[in-house]
């Protein structure tokens, strides 16, 4: 049976089966997760030669390594002999991996190094069975991306306008570099991955889902998404979208408001940024960090970085860590503390988002009305000076952009 995606994905509504049908999930693995560029991790997680860390691309167990010459590889964690895992530790430093089953060894770039009792294979150097390697690996602002397709759009082409948002994150560091060195929380949700992706730039839900924490902390975040907000939701193309909160932060016009603090609390950081950037420092310190969903799985929410990993049609793991800015220890302590309070299984924000994803998934077991509605703001959308579709702060412009790109990938003639 061939799925007719053009019927399931319409301009103002999408069909519930897209979130519940296991055969669609299987097609997504082929056409999205094992084809397009997927974010795997960050170069700072393997800072030194020999460093490695285990990662996941959907169901694929991948080892991210840094070789002696500094190059990052993504190796599939599967011995060429009997399919055993060659790496069990979550992270470490080693120039090679040795399969514990029969002792086959591989360099940290994947080439075979040796196999014990080699006479059984006619002697040394007779076999050249390496580990599987993700065909294309590229980085942007240190974010490491994988594509299982040997060819296709480059990472730069894939990122398009979303690249500028990662630049905007990096420029908050006095050294121009983000580091993801705080380790990851892994939060499991019984929900389809697309519910998470759609929620990330949904400006309609914060006042409802997060009203509890906003009310007890006096947070101004809810106002950023209110009907009076001057912030916008932008479809950045390529399935990427953002909540551009800069209009609100510019209106407030004070450095560090984006971070819910004032410059008096982080004087060393602010001084360093002013020394480095001169006049432009005010713009950087006022506009703050992006809130951007990079298709299909990288979400930067100002102070937190999420990598979404689908594990089944109705189960997803949301990996999350704090943004750390190289050269800004004063900021990093606060970034970590705020992030820990907000995200993950016990987070005062994300636990409630996750509860909603799970209720969405359960609700969709109901047979009617079959569709999910994504029309909010259609009538007031405009095209901005750069040609991107823009809606109000709480419009579903980002979701429509996501679905349009999703459909183009799922409908590709050569997808199989």
């Amino acid at each position, binding site marked *: 049976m061939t799925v007719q995606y053009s019927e399931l994905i319409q301009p103002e509504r999408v069909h519930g089966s897209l979130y519940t049908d296991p055969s669609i999930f299987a097609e997504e693995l082929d056409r999205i997760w094992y084809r397009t560029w997927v974010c795997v991790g960050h170069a700072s997680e393997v800072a030194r030669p020999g460093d490695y860390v285990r990662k996941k691309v959907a169901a694929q167990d991948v080892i991210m390594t840094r070789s002696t010459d500094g190059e990052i590889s993504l190796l599939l964690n599967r011995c060429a002999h009997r399919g055993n895992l060659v790496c069990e530790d*979550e992270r470490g430093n080693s120039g090679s991996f040795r399969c514990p089953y029969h002792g086959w060894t591989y360099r940290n770039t994947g080439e075979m190094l040796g196999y014990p009792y080699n006479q059984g294979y006619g002697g040394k150097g007779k076999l050249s069975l390496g580990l599987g390697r993700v065909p294309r690996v590229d980085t942007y602002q240190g974010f490491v991306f994988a594509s299982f397709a040997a060819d296709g759009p480059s990472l730069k082409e894939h990122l398009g306008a979303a690249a500028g948002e990662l630049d905007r994150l990096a420029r908050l560091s006095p050294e121009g570099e983000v580091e993801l060195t705080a*380790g990851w929380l892994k939060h499991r949700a019984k929900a389809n991955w697309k519910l998470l992706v759609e929620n990330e730039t949904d400006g309609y839900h914060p006042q409802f889902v997060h*009203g*509890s924490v906003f009310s007890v902390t006096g947070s101004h975040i809810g106002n950023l998404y209110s009907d009076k907000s001057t912030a916008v939701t932008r479809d950045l193309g390529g399935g990427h979208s953002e909540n551009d909160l800069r209009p609100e932060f510019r209106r407030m016009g004070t450095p560090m408001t984006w971070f819910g603090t004032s410059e008096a609390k982080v004087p060393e950081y602010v001084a360093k940024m002013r020394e480095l950037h001169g006049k432009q420092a005010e713009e950087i310190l006022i506009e703050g960090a992006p809130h951007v969903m990079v298709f299909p799985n990288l979400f930067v929410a100002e102070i937190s970085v999420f990598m979404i990993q689908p594990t089944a049609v109705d189960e997803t793991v949301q990996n999350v860590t*704090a943004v750390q800015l190289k050269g800004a220890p004063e900021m990093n302590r606060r970034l970590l503390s705020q992030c*820990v309070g907000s995200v993950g299984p016990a987070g005062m924000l994300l636990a409630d988002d996750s*509860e909603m994803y799970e209720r969405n998934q359960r609700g969709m077991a109901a047979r009617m009305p079959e569709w999910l509605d994504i029309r909010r703001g259609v009538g007031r959308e405009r095209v901005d000076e750069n040609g991107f579709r823009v809606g109000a702060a709480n419009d579903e412009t980002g979701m429509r952009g996501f679905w349009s790109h999703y459909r183009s990938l799922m409908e590709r003639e050569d997808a199989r």
Partner: protein
Amino acid sequence: MSSLAEHTGLDLREVERFLYREARLADEHDYDGWEALWTDDALYWVPAGSPDADPQRLMSVIYDNRSRIRTRISQLKTGKRYAQSPPSNMRRLISNIEVVAVEGADTVVGANFLLIESRERGTTMWAGRTTYRLRRVEDDIRLAYKKVVLVDSAEALSTLAFLI
């Protein structure tokens, strides 16, 4: 054990009574009662990944000082903390209680727990070892520190919005 009791005035029976009460308040969502157990220098910590992970440098599931405990409890009390509204039904068993050390006015206690959580998502089993720091304050025992090391802290976790 008798020498420990001399130093702190906390014997194992008192320790047990406190741990059981703390567990019951958490299980029954008695938020005010549970919050009142804490000292002003409180620390409530659930590490992620390794139990020895430095919380000043690495992500934790929970890393609450007294002020953040207050925020967490206030959020639960709004009734709109959806991850706990409706609240989970749960019961935990506390066992293998050991007095680990006496440090000044504090008695450090270790104990295992097994917790069954039931909510519409399904039934989840949580287990681990908790380190408590108990302090006698006048006629009362108060909680200065609670570190909960989950047996599955290295794996992906379901939402944990109740008091663990």
